Every structure is written in C-alpha cells, then in structure tokens.
C-alpha cells in the first residue's frame, strides 16, 4: 500500500528523514521514535503534504503530493492541536465529510457515524474551543475516518487521552485493522503501542533503525542477551542446573533468596528446556517474567547501538 524508496527530506540545513526505504501493508503498524526523530515528517510525506528531497513515496502506486486520488483513500489525524475553533465538533466533521465529495445527506450520515464510533455523539454540538484534549483527539479521529479510508495515519493519537479513552481508541483501531485497513500509528510512548501491534517501524534522528515484527527485531539483537526473572524457592539449585546449559550466560540470585535472574542469548531454547529441567529436579517455579522483552528495551538497545 505504501512504499518509500530511499526517501530523504531536508528542511534547509536540517534533515528531517534520511534515506528511508520501507513498505507498509495492511494491519496496524507502529511508527516509533523519540520526539524530533522524523515521525511527523514521514507522516507528511506519506500524506502528500511534503515532497521528498530525494527518493520517492508511493501510495497505492501513486505520488501522494496534492493528489486527490490518494486522499480519497487515506485518512489523516495530525498531531497538531489546531481546529477552526468557531465550529462545533459536528459541523467540523460534517465539513470534512463534504470536502470528501459527499452530498449533504450522505455527508451528514457519515459524519454522525464517525462521531458515534469515537464516542462523541452526546458532545458533538459543543464548540471545539471548549473541548478537552481528549475530546479534540476523538474529533480528529472522526474526521480522519469519516470517508472510510483504506489507510489511516494517526500522528501521536493517544496524547491527552485518559486510560478509558486510550482503551476505546485502541479498540477502534483494532476494529479498523480487522476490516483489512492499514493503520499507521506514530508514537513515542512505547508501552501504548505495544498493546496495539507487533509490527514496527523505528526511526531515530531521521534514519530507519529497524522495521518488521517486534519479536523478530528483538531476536536479531544479539548484543544484548535476554534477561529472564524466575521466582522459585530453590534459586541456587536451579541456578546450578541452568548454568550447565550452553545458551545460559549468567545466573544471579536475588537478594531475597527467592528469585533468580538469568541471561540467555537463545530465549526460545531456554523456554523449551526450563519445564523439563524443573520437573526432573522437582523445583517449583512461582513466577516467570522477561523484564526486557518489551518495546522500551528493544528501542533502547537499537538507539544505543
């Protein structure tokens, strides 16, 4: 659906994105990076607001810059917090719907549906200037989905939402992805994104750091062994047996003598071996977790490299 080929974008002397090549297909894809990493620039390139300085961006095989054919099929929820403040939420979404080419009745119907999806039906008649941050985010999403686009690009959509709102927002996105839509969500809050998808694009200082499945990316990071914390009443005995395994690098007993932290380069083999070993030796395990098997750690490792 979206193909970026050696895309770079300069703002005068400053580089926004640098030589990025990737493809984005259906499902939810997270665009991750710290503030200023180039996420918004990428979004603007894909939504045809900007032209790449070098390279090419294709959406459905078309150049997206100022291209109405592309805009018919993409919805964009920008990260800016600006609105035509004199309008009500309903009027704003209706206008956006009309600008998609729908006649009055169809535009009304579609805007009502979109407003309902984001849970704003009861507050849509209020003026936008009186909206909270969360309400503004919802209305931004409503205007992005009002024309039922095939690709939805959301720039930092979870900013300002309360926990319930975040949950609802994620459910909406999951529903859209389930319908075969391509949803691209940019964020710098990794744990939120982790709940939505395992398909990632990581950017750092304008460069593409990694792209693909979160698990695959994590597995490729061999410089940093996986840490696994095991809660057991026999940590020393378990440590002794585990250290016999060739893929276990270290084992550290917890200060409370009730846990063990193991480092391994091959977590899959470790998880295969652990049940057999504990059963054979009669060691009870009361808890098991992998503290660095999350996006935050993956991102940290990649940035440090």
């Amino acid at each position, binding site marked *: 659906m979206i193909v970026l080929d050696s895309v770079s974008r300069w*703002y005068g002397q400053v580089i926004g994105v640098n030589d990025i090549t990737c493809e984005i297909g259906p499902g939810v894809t997270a665009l991750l990076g710290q503030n200023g990493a180039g996420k918004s620039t990428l979004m603007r390139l894909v939504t045809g607001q900007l032209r790449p300085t070098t390279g090419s961006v294709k959406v459905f095989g078309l150049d997206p810059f100022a291209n*109405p054919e592309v805009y018919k099929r993409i919805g*964009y929820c920008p990260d800016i917090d600006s609105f035509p403040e004199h309008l009500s939420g309903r009027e704003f979404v209706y206008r956006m719907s009309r*600008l998609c080419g729908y006649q009055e009745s169809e535009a009304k119907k579609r805007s009502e549906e979109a407003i309902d999806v984001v849970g704003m039906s009861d507050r849509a008649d209020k003026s936008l200037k009186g909206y909270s941050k969360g309400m503004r985010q919802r209305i931004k999403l409503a205007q992005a989905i009002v024309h039922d686009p095939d690709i939805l690009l959301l720039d930092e959509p979870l900013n300002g939402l309360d926990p319930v709102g975040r949950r609802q927002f994620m459910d909406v996105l999951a529903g859209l992805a389930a319908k075969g839509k391509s949803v691209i969500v940019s964020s710098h809050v990794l744990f939120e994104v982790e709940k939505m998808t395992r398909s990632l694009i990581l950017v750092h200082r304008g460069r593409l750091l990694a792209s693909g499945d979160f698990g695959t990316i994590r597995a490729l990071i061999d410089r940093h062994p996986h840490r696994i914390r095991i809660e057991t009443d026999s940590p020393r005995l378990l440590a002794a047996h585990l250290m016999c395994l060739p893929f276990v690098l270290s084992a550290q007993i917890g200060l409370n003598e009730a846990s063990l932290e193991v480092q391994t380069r091959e977590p899959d083999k470790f998880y295969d071996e652990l049940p057999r070993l504990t059963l054979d030796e009669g060691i009870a395990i009361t808890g098991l977790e992998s503290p660095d098997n999350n996006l935050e750690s993956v991102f940290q490792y990649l940035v440090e490299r």
Partner: protein
Amino acid sequence: MTRFVFSTTLRDLLRPQRLIAWLAVVGMVFVISKVWAVLAADLTGADSFGRVYQAVVLRVVALASAVFATMVLSQEVEQQTIVYLITRPVPRRTLMFGRMLAAAVVSFGVGFLSLFAAGFAVLGLGFFSSPSLIVDVLVLAVGVMAYIGFFVFLSLTISRSLIISLLFAFGWETFVPNMPGDMFYVSILTYLRSAAPEAVMAAGPSLGDVITGALAPKSVSAGLSWVILSLLVVGLWTLCLWWFSRFEYSPREEGE
C-alpha cells in the same frame, strides 16, 4: 465542490464579530466623506465625490482585500488548520479558487457599502442617479479582484504577509502614483483611478492630492487601464491557483 468551499469560506469570513468591525469601517467612511465634503466646499459635488472615492473608498477596498486575502491561506497556515484542507480529495486549485472568490465577494461587499456611504455623504440622494455609478461599481469589482489576486499571491510566497500587504495598500499605493517618471505604472491604484470616471487632476501639493495620487500626471487611458486591470486579474488569479497546487503548505513543527 467549488460552491461548497466558497459558501463555507463566505460563512467563516462573515462571522458576526468581523461583520460588526467592517460595518464600523463603513460608518467611518460615511463620517470622513461628510467631513471632506464640508471642508472642500469650493469643489463641486461631483469633484468632491471623485476625491473621496479615490482617497477613501478605493483605500477601504485595498484594506479589505489585504485583510480578507490573508484569511484565504496565510491564516490557515499560521493556525495550522491548513492540514485539514490539503489532505482532502479536493484539487488544490478548486480549494484556492473557492476561497479567493469568497474573499473577493466579501471585500467587494465592504467596498460597495463604502461607495454608497461616501456617495450618500457627499451627494445625498442625488448619488443614486449619478451616471457614473455603474462604472464606479465595476471599478470596485475589478479593483477587488486585482488586489485579492496580488495579496493572496503575497501570502503564498511570504509568511506573515498581512503587514506587507498593508504596507503595499497604504504605502506603495499612496506614494508610487505620485512619483515622477514612469513609476506610477507599477501601482494598481493608478489603473483604478484611470478607469474611474471621476478623474482627479493635479490641483496642488496638498495632502488630499498626495492621498489621491493626483500629483503625478494621469497618462494612462481608461481603455488601457481596463485592459491592464483585466490582465492583472487573470494573471494573478491563475498564478495563485498554479502556485498553491505546486508548492508545499504544511505546518512545520518546532522540533523538525
């Protein structure tokens, strides 16, 4: 789609606060015209009105055009709301044309009301039977279109264009027509003055003559003025539509 863009822009431009402010401007035109007529008692009514038309009404047209032209695009870019418009399946030239047309209509409305306020203040009810009324209105319409084209183009090419537009409307358009040599050719006001039936000839170096641009000899014929104004309108409007379709108008973040 042009109709929808035009009507929504028109509604935005005619919000009550703005309407009240512009009605106040029209009221001021009436007062200034009345004072002018009293102070220039030695002139005939038609001469007085000619001066008021060129010194006040055409300036109000330039002012309204500068302000409303800024709202066509510059304001949307500064407030970052442009992003909602340019990511919709509407050709950019349609978007720009609808918005420019709305700005032109509102500016013309202000100019039209100012013309009537000035005419009524100077000529009383006799203004409505003035033989030059239709041409005066036509000059206003073409003037608005030319100014809108020029000021929108400024807003497409420079940021914070309102200040430059106002400097042009009140600085350039005041002094350039008075300059010796051929400089007066590069002023829109020169052609509006020439196309208007109320020719104001140089009477002396008074403030009124400076404001009406009457110090320089009027050497552009009415016919040529109409041709040049028409070319300006077509050229500037086409340029604006092309420019907006060709270049980027994305709000830039501080972090990038």
